[in-house]
């Protein structure tokens, strides 16, 4: 498949935004359980939510560049019964709105408990309720985004639950890395907490991504030229594809890069997403640096761009069987 930069930025940016929100809310839950010191509502949670919103909005903006008719994008909310893309179009604004409310509740300091559970130990206030709803929406959004790809059964490289795990874990890992960077910037004492979770999520993502890479390498494609044109012969050679100067079919479904570039991207993402951020986060923990977590996030995000590029380049659409040579 041709890697479209609009989709690469959309999926990676909203992943970071979702992950950052999850990190913020995880931090709040830990503080509620008195496992971590409570953070300031405005300078930490509200500002962090604004940062998550900024990433989500940037991703939403990138998605419009993918459309031929962005002015009709609202129509995409109508077919949620059958289309995962439509479901994403609905869940994304809901997630945005709930994270906005979450940030607003912290900003306005709506801390008056609505009810108190567990004999005074669990005050349920607006931030907790909205945060729980936003968490559900965030996970729903991960599933919707990934299922857009995983539901296409003939793109066999994508048609696997691993795609959903990868999208969720990459979003979580990059979001928690950003949370570590944000804590360092906000001088909150949470860098090691978020850093540890970022490393755990990055390692989990490494497991599932390695599994999907292994799966794709050993994939047996169901379709071949014999089933594509229905002629039983082991030797079939394409002599003409009906157009000399290329067509939509040759532009949209081929990455068009030499194998060397694909290998280069492959090794770049393996290095940039996994070992380098882990080392940087570990070093940040050791020397208590403010800038290393930020660097770790930048490196990992760059790596995720490469990962998403490879995700598309790796997928072989069966229609490519009809477009193997021009003459």
């Amino acid at each position, binding site marked *: 498949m041709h890697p479209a930069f609009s989709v690469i930025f959309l999926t990676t940016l909203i992943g970071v935004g979702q992950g950052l929100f999850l990190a913020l809310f995880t931090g709040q839950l830990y503080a509620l359980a008195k496992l971590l010191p409570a953070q300031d509502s405005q300078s930490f949670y509200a500002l962090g939510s604004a940062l998550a919103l900024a990433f989500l909005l940037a991703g939403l903006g990138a998605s419009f560049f993918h459309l*031929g008719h962005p002015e009709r994008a609202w*129509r*995409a909310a109508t077919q949620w019964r059958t289309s995962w893309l439509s479901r994403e179009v609905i869940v994304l604004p809901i997630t945005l709105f709930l994270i906005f409310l979450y940030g607003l509740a912290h900003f306005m300091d709506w801390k008056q408990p609505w009810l108190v559970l567990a004999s005074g130990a669990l005050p349920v206030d607006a931030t907790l309720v909205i945060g729980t709803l936003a968490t559900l929406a965030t996970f729903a959004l991960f599933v919707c985004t990934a299922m857009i790809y995983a*539901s296409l059964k003939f793109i066999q490289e994508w048609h696997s639950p691993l795609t959903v795990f990868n999208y969720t874990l990459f979003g979580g890992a990059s979001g928690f890395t950003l949370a570590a960077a944000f804590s360092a910037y906000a001088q909150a004492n949470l860098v090691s907490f978020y850093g540890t979770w970022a490393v755990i999520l990055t390692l989990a993502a490494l497991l599932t991504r390695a599994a999907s890479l292994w799966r794709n390498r050993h994939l047996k494609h169901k379709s071949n030229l014999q*089933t594509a044109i*229905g002629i039983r012969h082991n030797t079939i050679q394409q002599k003409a594809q009906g157009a000399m100067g290329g067509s*939509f079919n040759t532009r949209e479904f081929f990455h068009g890069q030499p194998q060397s570039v694909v290998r280069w991207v492959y090794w770049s993402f393996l290095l940039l997403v996994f070992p380098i951020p882990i080392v940087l986060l570990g070093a940040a923990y050791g020397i208590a640096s403010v800038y290393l977590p930020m660097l770790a996030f930048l490196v990992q995000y760059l790596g995720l761009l490469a990962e998403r590029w490879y995700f598309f380049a790796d997928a072989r659409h069966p229609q490519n069987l009809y477009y193997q040579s021009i003459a």
Partner: protein
Amino acid sequence: MTQLALIIDLNVCVGCHACVTSCKEWNTSGWAGPMTDFNPYGENPTGTFFNRVQTFEIGVFPNTETVHFPKSCLHCEEPPCVPVCPTGASYKREKDGIVLVDYDKCIGCKYCSWACPYGARELDEKQKVMKKCTLCVDRIYDQKLPEAERRPACVMSCPTSARLFGDIHDPDSEVSVTIRESGGYQLMPEWGTKPANHYLPRRKTRITLHRDELERADNPLKKEGILPAPPADQKTLDETTSW
């Protein structure tokens, strides 16, 4: 239920591209148009087509055979491109099973083209909407045309009648009988898309001849045995007799 479809006979197709040009001519100026071209006279011409003819060489020289393969939307009975459309612009008509795109609703997200294993859909780079074969829906129901012309442009133009058009759900229609009797098959059956369009395979016409069909067993000459050849210096019958 009606399911209109094309039957393409690979045994007859000569790869002349008449269906390609007549399809483009009819549709670019009609309801489904325009089918925009870029660089039509330049170095790398490209553009939107609903129908393309590809050519494949089967086998190894000298035992090769050239197959021309016309390729367009197959109007699947289980079209995978329809449920993925987020706007409902892609739809399959209940009435006749034609899969169509509503250009006014399409947002040009290309997701349906990803969901089609056959690569039958093409984004028009000018109009920025997804386009595909309509089975000439603006022609086959046109009461102003004589009945014989209410057929898709590609079927009308095919000089070898390699393309048939009809309802494959009617068991007695010409297309259904042809599929049954001439081994009509579907492309990529492994995905369960149930394409409505069928292809007819290459067929070799062979006749078995026995020796006694070439030489009469009851040839009277044979009964007498082979006559001795006349001597070379003997006059022939023509030379001895005036007729």
